[in-house]
């Protein structure tokens, strides 16, 4: 993905948003100095644990909140103070927020009618949009006569029909059951790719984020921890928080033996490896590296560091081990379908890893 | 935006309209403060309206309430003329000043002097005597005779079976109170000259205190102090109480209207009080012309014959008016020498004292 070829559509500049705290005297900073560029046509996900400020950021973009400090620019126009109904964006809500007293048709037509669009044109657009989303024939139903998945489709159609500049999603799949969620996920993926609408998506589900996004913004405590493609985020987390939040991670101590422009030699579990070092580290110090569980393997080999298996769980697609090595517990996942053997709890066994998977973290 | 602005303007103009709405000017109307019973008020206003074409409105208030209401609105009176109710209240109003004004009606010449104010603040429109209105069935049940003296009312059998109105609101009740004051003054005077009445012929403080003593004793037998003077009569009619202290004509009225054979009227032998129903022009009232027309009209013999048509059997003050045969003639009963001027002068002090000392005192 070549970033230079892309145009910045939406720009957040030094956004700060505070809410009064419970006592009413102090303030809680929900969004803390966030700057972000969103490119035209991309699918961007705001990812983070609850309370990290991702929903607030989305609501600031939508216009439901006004930042205390900072600016929001849409195509270089300042829209910070613009009311939400004037912004060319449509928000898909977590609980769908369908109008309970209107039929499916009226729900989808609502926004177009607000624009005073001629009746025939409204009908046309609504019908098209409903058939795209696979709800043709259900126009006359009320929201409470629909299943959860259907309701979410109506909500999606209602936003899509507006042909907004930016489509906003606020955890739209979190109320669906697991199977339906996967199905809707690929539906959203298909629609977004085919229509090419710039989308900003909020979720706390990393799998969803990875599956859908061009880029992911990982947030924590109101700040951006890292922005990058799903792969960058997974393979090269910039902080321990990101490493831990996306997938599972083992954090291991390593000793720096040498450094040279952007890379370093480290000793990890007795093995000498080379890795990228995008920041300054000193020779001789102990640093932290991250190893994903699937990058580690267990092998009967006395030359390897020996760990004791504390727990072994058979999960079908993989076997998950918790192995104690000295004073740390390492999670190791074995997902090689060729292996039939499962080590037993209490067994002492050698631990090996793929050197290329070692990723150096700042302290 | 446009529709919003329009709505905003609409709301704003509504606000302005509410705030700036001008007072409605009224002509060719008359507002009467009416103290006698409701149906008489209706009959009077309808007759006046028929005769003059003036749109006539009334509010019925007992005399104490009427006085309070006049005071409340004295800066900007709501009423133009006050018709009916014991003259004591009218005297109190003229003494207080600023409430009613003098008017020398050409028709007042026909009214005997004893029934009108020498200073022309008020003129009497009817006369009636105070009496006891008793339910014969209840009396029989309680084993007492119909009371024929004030002391009969204190009988222990009657505990909770006597009712009168509150002197603060009702002229009737005040008449009763002043009657007892007069009787006590007479009694004191009989014992020692000068103890019952002072040099000016007004009852002394002792006489008033003695009356308070009497009513404090009576309080034990009182079920309820009603607001309106005639209300106890109905209570008696319905058998809620045995004896009501009301004007005899109110009792007669009830007998005419369904309580015949149930209610009986008796009078205290030692003497009973009576009322002169007064009438006055309200000072600064909104419809002075119409008020005078009413005043003159109300004194005519013809008008004074309206009462009996609605069973209000007070005696007319106009000697030319026909007297109903059901009316109680003052000459047939023992009437005290009721000093209206003194009664009116003492009205405020007495009602407040009554309210504080008697009416709100707990009963045993």
């Amino acid at each position, binding site marked *: 993905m070549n970033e230079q070829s892309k145009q910045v559509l939406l720009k957040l500049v030094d956004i700060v948003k505070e809410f009064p705290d419970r006592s009413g005297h102090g303030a809680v900073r929900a969004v803390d100095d966030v700057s972000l560029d969103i490119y035209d046509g991309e699918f961007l996900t705001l990812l983070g644990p609850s309370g990290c400020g991702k929903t607030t950021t989305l609501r600031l973009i939508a216009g439901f909140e006004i930042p205390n400090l900072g600016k929001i620019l849409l195509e270089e126009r300042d829209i910070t103070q613009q009311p939400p109904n004037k912004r060319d964006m449509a928000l898909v809500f977590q609980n769908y927020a369908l109008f309970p007293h209107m039929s499916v048709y009226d729900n989808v037509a609502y926004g177009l009618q607000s624009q005073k669009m001629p009746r025939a044109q409204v009908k046309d657009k609504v019908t098209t949009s409903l058939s795209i989303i696979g709800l043709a024939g259900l126009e006359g139903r009320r929201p409470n006569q629909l299943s959860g998945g259907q309701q979410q489709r109506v*909500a999606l159609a209602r936003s899509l029909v507006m042909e907004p500049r930016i489509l906003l999603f606020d955890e739209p799949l979190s109320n669906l059951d697991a199977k339906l969620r996967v199905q809707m996920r690929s539906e959203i993926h298909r629609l977004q790719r085919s229509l090419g609408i710039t989308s900003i998506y909020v979720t706390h589900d990393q799998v969803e984020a990875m599956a859908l996004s061009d880029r992911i913004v990982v947030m924590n405590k109101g700040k951006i921890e890292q922005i990058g493609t799903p792969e960058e985020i997974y393979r090269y987390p910039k902080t321990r928080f990101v490493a831990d939040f996306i997938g599972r991670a083992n954090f291991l101590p390593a000793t720096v033996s040498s450094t040279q422009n952007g890379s370093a030699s480290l000793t990890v579990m007795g093995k000498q490896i080379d890795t990228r070092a995008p920041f300054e580290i000193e020779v001789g110090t102990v640093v932290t590296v991250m190893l994903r569980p699937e990058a580690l393997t267990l092998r009967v080999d006395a030359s390897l560091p020996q760990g004791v298996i504390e727990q072994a769980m058979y999960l079908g697609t993989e076997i998950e081990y918790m192995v104690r090595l000295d004073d740390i517990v390492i999670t190791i996942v074995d997902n090689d379908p060729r292996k039939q053997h499962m080590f037993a709890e209490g067994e002492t066994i050698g631990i090996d890893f793929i050197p290329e998977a070692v990723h150096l973290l700042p302290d | 935006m446009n529709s919003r602005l329009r709505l905003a303007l609409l*709301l704003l103009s509504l606000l302005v309209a509410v705030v700036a709405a001008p007072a409605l000017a009224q002509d060719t109307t008359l507002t009467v403060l009416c103290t006698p019973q409701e149906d008489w008020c209706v009959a009077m206003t309808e007759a006046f309206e028929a005769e003059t074409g003036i749109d006539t409105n*009334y509010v019925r208030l007992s005399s*104490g309430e009427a006085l309070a209401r006049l005071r409340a609105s004295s800066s900007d009176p709501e009423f133009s003329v006050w018709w009916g109710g014991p003259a004591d209240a009218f005297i109190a109003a003229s003494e207080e000043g600023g409430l009613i004004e003098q008017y020398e009606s050409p028709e007042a010449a026909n009214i005997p002097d004893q029934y009108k104010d020498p200073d022309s603040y008020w003129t009497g429109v009817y006369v009636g005597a105070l009496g006891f209105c008793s339910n014969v069935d209840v009396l029989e049940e309680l084993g007492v005779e119909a009371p024929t003296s004030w002391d009969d009312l204190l009988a222990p059998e009657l505990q909770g079976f006597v009712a009168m109105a509150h002197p603060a609101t009702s002229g009737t009740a005040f008449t009763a109170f002043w009657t007892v004051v007069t009787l006590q003054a007479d009694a004191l005077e009989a014992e020692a000259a000068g103890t019952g009445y002072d040099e000016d012929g007004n009852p002394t403080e002792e006489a008033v205190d003695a009356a308070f003593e009497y009513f404090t004793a009576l309080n034990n037998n009182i079920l309820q102090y009603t607001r309106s003077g005639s209300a106890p009569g109905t209570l008696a009619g319905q058998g809620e109480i045995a004896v009501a202290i009301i004007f005899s004509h109110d009792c007669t009225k009830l007998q005419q209207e369904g309580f015949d054979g149930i209610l009986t009227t008796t009078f205290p032998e030692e003497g009973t009080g009576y009322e002169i129903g007064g009438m006055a022009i309200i000072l600064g009232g909104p419809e002075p012309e119409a008020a005078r027309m009413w005043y003159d009209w109300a004194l005519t013999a013809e008008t004074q014959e309206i009462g009996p048509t609605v069973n209000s059997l007070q005696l007319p003050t106009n000697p030319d008016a026909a007297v109903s045969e059901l009316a109680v003639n003052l000459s047939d009963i023992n009437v005290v020498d009721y000093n209206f001027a003194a009664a009116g002068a003492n009205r405020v002090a007495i009602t407040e004292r009554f309210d504080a000392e008697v009416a709100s005192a707990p009963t045993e």
Partner: protein
Amino acid sequence: MQGIRNSQQAKQFRALLKDPLLLVVLLFLIFFVVVAILLPIFSIVGESFSEEGLPLFRRYVTDPVYQNIVLNTLVMGTLVGAVGTGIGFLFAFVQVKLDVPFKRFMHFVALVPVISPPFALATSAIVLFGRSGSISRGIFGVRYDIYGLNGLVFVMALSFFTITYLNLRGMMEALDPALDEAAINLGASRWRIFRTVTIPMLLPGIASSFLLLFVEAIADLGNPLVLGGNYEVLATRIYVTIIGLYNPTGAAVLSIILLIPSLLVFVVQRYWISRISVVSVTGKPAGTPQTIKNPYVKWGLFAVVMFICLLVVLLYGAILHGAFVTVPGVRWDFTLDHFDFVLNGIGSQAMRDTTVLSGIATPIAAVIGILIAYIVVRKQFLGRDLLDFGAMLGIAVPGTIIGIGYILAFNTPIMIGDVTIIPKLTGGQAIFGGALAIVLVYITRSVPAALRSGVASLSQIDPAIEEASISLGADTVRTFRKITLPLIRPALFAGLVYAFARSMTTISAIIFLTTPQTKIMTQQILNEVENGRYGNAFAYCVILVAIVLVAIGVFYALVGTKTGAERRTKGE
């Protein structure tokens, strides 16, 4: 931090300025609350703490007569609170926890007092159970002395228990049956569950019902006037002080004495009980409520409630019957004179005036209530809570006090310099013959109910639904009209019905404000009752109830249509 917070308030304010409609509405609402509610109350406070007022305080507080009146008031409030809550609890319990016939009938009976005029029950109680009552004397041969505390408690408890019933029923229905099941599972007996689970869970509801009734009772003027006998309470004392003695200062001082317990209860209710409440009414109960099976308990309770229903039916039956006989209780000949009196005679003006004024006040009250609810629930601004509190004072403050406050505040025009800000509102010479003051009082007294039902209804609507509308390009007005309003229709309907019924039946605040030009039915009823013309009074009551019922029908036709919202709440 501080700087940012200030700028946040500034931003909220600027956002408000940017929405001129919202700003105008907000200013209008604030103007209403300040002028119609706060100003009269402050006038009373001002008057009573004036130089003439303060010595009166001393006199009233030390005088045993007045101490006795205060004591009477508190005793009456407590008893009415206890008995009324008991009856309400019984009705609710039978409705929710028993499987017995006639439940709809019981429900209906419990609702009737809402639309019944004041002292209708009191009068009817005199006719049936008084010293010459058709039942007490006619059947049992007893001269029962109904005047005084016992009669007051009897009548007030029956008049006011509806609110307790509805409160407690709502809570009982919201009680999660799983709690009962858990308790049974742990081996508790029915009685033990009732004692250790049901009652404690309902305690906040019981307490708040008790307090509501307490306030309602001590604020009531009509019943003590009719039935009080020599049992004097603060409300009647205030009344005599104004009506009989015209002593506004004394009345103001007594009002403050009455105001203290009322406000105390209001504050406790608002800030304490709501906090300790453990039943979440919005919570979705799972499982089916367990009904009581023990036949003695079941049929015993059933009998008690049916007996109370019978009493209520008898009392109202007596009103209906009494309207058609010459002298109720004495002469039982059939007559239509009383109706003639009300419909064609002097009663007709009162009937017309009251209906028209209530009709004017009702939509305004409902709209103001709903608007305040909307702003309080949905908008962020400084003093939001104050607006809500101020509006609620309209009902938390006893009607007598509102009435006297109006006399004190509006008997003369309020001027700033030479400009009349608010003209003279009370008395015959006031604008519209004093009708404006009456309409204002009607609105003041009715707004709180509309406000509460609006708040309840709005807080059940996910704000996301409104945001969705805005996100789809609709502005605030369109969102309110197309989305919010249809969804809170049931609340609007309830607000309208309540406002109209309340306006038609209110007495205590109005009694000081009627003028020669405006006659009010409740005041006329009181006159008729006081003068013992029960037939006329009953005819008035019958017609008043008929008017209210017709109005409910009209409101239903106007706003009570079957919307999706209703279907949704019914869960169809």
